[in-house]
């Protein structure tokens, strides 16, 4: 067992290294020169700047950030400063360090996504289990069709429709940001209400999509567990239907869904790029969209680093949790 854990840890560590290397190389493909952006910003502050000064400024900045060195050297210096907890400065928000931007955005994203995922997961699995248990009933078929279409609609389309409906046509919800901007952030009932109001639409769109997927898969899982021998035996024993549903079928169909939940929670740290940029929510997804469009690869690597760590931890956790949840895996070993 000890050897298994160590082996898994080493392989996850290398997975993480190669993953960051690939992302690192890809982000450097960007046609935008980040140094030009910084110099442009500095030039705007001071009125007169000669061509010579411009060139020398560029050179200094290049050498400060090590951008004049070969790519692999840059990668190693990136990893080195990463170990010391330094993600470098953001190019487009110039002197602000990347880690500060990320820690400012992190609570918004994590709050929005974990709440939405957990609500959607619970509701979706309950509905899916009931729909699967009574698969022949009309309402079950209707539910499957409804949630199937919901999960298959391209997500941006769903989000945009919600926004147009509830922001422009019926202006119930605010459009911009994560909290009422006129108020200072201190804890009060009104402020919390404002946060919920701002998070409602993005959260609703996420819940609908996640729920769609989990209802459809849970229904299929429940149907397959329902036809297994032990469930048929339970029916023949004349156990009450409710008992069979919750104790025989539901518990056994939950196992694959736990995998799904763990992976989705792991992905939280990447932010929801589409959701946050459509609803202008101040989280990690919007930050990474901003970074992509402005060629700010330090910032992008910073966000990607957290998302890679999140997924790697989730994958690792799954390997260790599964034997605890499913006794059959333990016996298999």
């Amino acid at each position, binding site marked *: 067992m000890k050897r298994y854990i160590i082996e898994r840890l080493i*392989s996850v560590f290398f997975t993480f290294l190669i*993953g960051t290397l690939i992302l690192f190389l890809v982000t450097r493909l960007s046609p935008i020169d980040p140094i030009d952006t910084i110099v442009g910003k500095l030039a705007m502050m001071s009125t007169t700047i000669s061509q010579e000064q411009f060139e020398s400024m560029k050179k200094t900045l290049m050498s400060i950030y090590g951008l004049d060195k070969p790519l692999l050297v840059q990668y190693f210096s990136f990893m080195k400063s990463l170990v010391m907890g330094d993600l470098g400065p953001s190019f487009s928000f110039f002197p602000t360090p990347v880690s500060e931007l990320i820690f400012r955005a992190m609570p918004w994203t994590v709050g929005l996504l974990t709440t939405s995922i957990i609500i959607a997961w619970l509701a979706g699995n309950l509905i899916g289990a009931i729909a699967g248990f009574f698969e022949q009933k009309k309402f079950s078929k209707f539910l499957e069709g409804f949630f199937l*279409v919901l999960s298959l609609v391209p997500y941006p389309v769903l989000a945009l429709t919600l926004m147009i409906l509830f922001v422009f046509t019926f202006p119930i919800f605010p459009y911009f940001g994560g909290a009422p901007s006129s108020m200072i952030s201190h804890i009060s009932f009104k402020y919390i209400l404002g946060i919920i109001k701002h998070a409602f639409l993005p959260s609703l769109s996420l819940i609908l999509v996640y729920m769609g997927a989990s209802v459809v898969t849970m229904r299929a899982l429940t149907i397959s567990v329902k036809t297994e021998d032990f469930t048929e035996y339970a029916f023949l024993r004349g156990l009450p239907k409710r008992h069979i549903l919750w104790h025989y079928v539901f518990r056994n169909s939950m196992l694959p869904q736990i995998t799904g939940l763990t992976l989705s929670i792991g992905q939280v740290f990447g932010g929801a*790029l589409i959701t946050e940029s459509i609803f202008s929510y101040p989280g990690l997804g919007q930050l990474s969209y901003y970074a992509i469009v402005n060629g700010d690869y330090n910032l992008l690597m910073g966000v990607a680093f957290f998302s890679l760590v999140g997924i790697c931890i989730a994958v690792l956790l799954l390997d260790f949790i599964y034997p605890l949840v499913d006794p059959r895996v333990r016996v298999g070993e």
Partner: protein
Amino acid sequence: MMRRILRFFRYLRISKSFSYGVITLVILLILGYVVAPFAPYDPMRWGKVPRDRPPSLKYPLGTTTVGQDVFWLATYAIRNSFTLSILTGFFSMLIASFMGFISGYLNEKVTGKLTNLIIDSFSVIPGLPYIMVLAFSFKEYLNIPLIALFLSTIGWAWPSKQLRSIILEIREKTHVYTARASGFSLFTIFWSEFLPYVLPWIATTVLNLMTWAIGMETALGVFGLSSMEKATIGTTIYWAMNYQALLRGKWWWIGTPIVTVILMITSLYYISIGLGEMLNPRSRLAQLRRERIQWLKSEM
């Protein structure tokens, strides 16, 4: 072969959702590949038809604000989006079957371990930001095959993980040991010992990859990172949003690509479910029973 085709048609009759999928897909394919070349004018050109007309007999799906015929635009979009999804499915599956087979079959060797590591690394990379960076970096050169290639560089990872576990299971069978002991080459072993088992899985996975590609293209399109000169589902939505079609009540413009993409994705989904059931020997018994009932009903 003949028997397989016959079984396909028999299955078409007994499974409603499968026949819905096949029929919708055939109609969409005809619209995209047979009808689209007959377009009286290039649908991407502006000002060919009057602006902002609602659906009528002359313009069955209305016209856009810049003077394009939505119907012909949709046929082009269907064709391009399908081409993109088929290319993505093909490329991804090509890489996935190679990597998955190597890492599963050579599990104990260093090659297998390394391939597995690469598969794992690609499957933890956040997909959407990765593709957006690629698309943004090559924005000027974007065309359909290039987007398909970009999507394939990340789309192969999860399928190869699945394939690896399938291969690990199959390779313990005796006929594989016999083939290996007889000194067959790696390719021959894959082709004749593994492929027959894996084929149903490949079929359904390619369909799933196609669905994924269509969805991804739509997401890229909404951000304006798809091939903007070509009509695809994503770019049609992008331009409609850009001209505030929904706010201004031009529902036919934005509604057409949305309905089309839902039809495309649901048809592919039902076909992949149906194919999986049809080719799965375990569910064949239930299938025979259903065929029998159908036959009895028709006799009565």
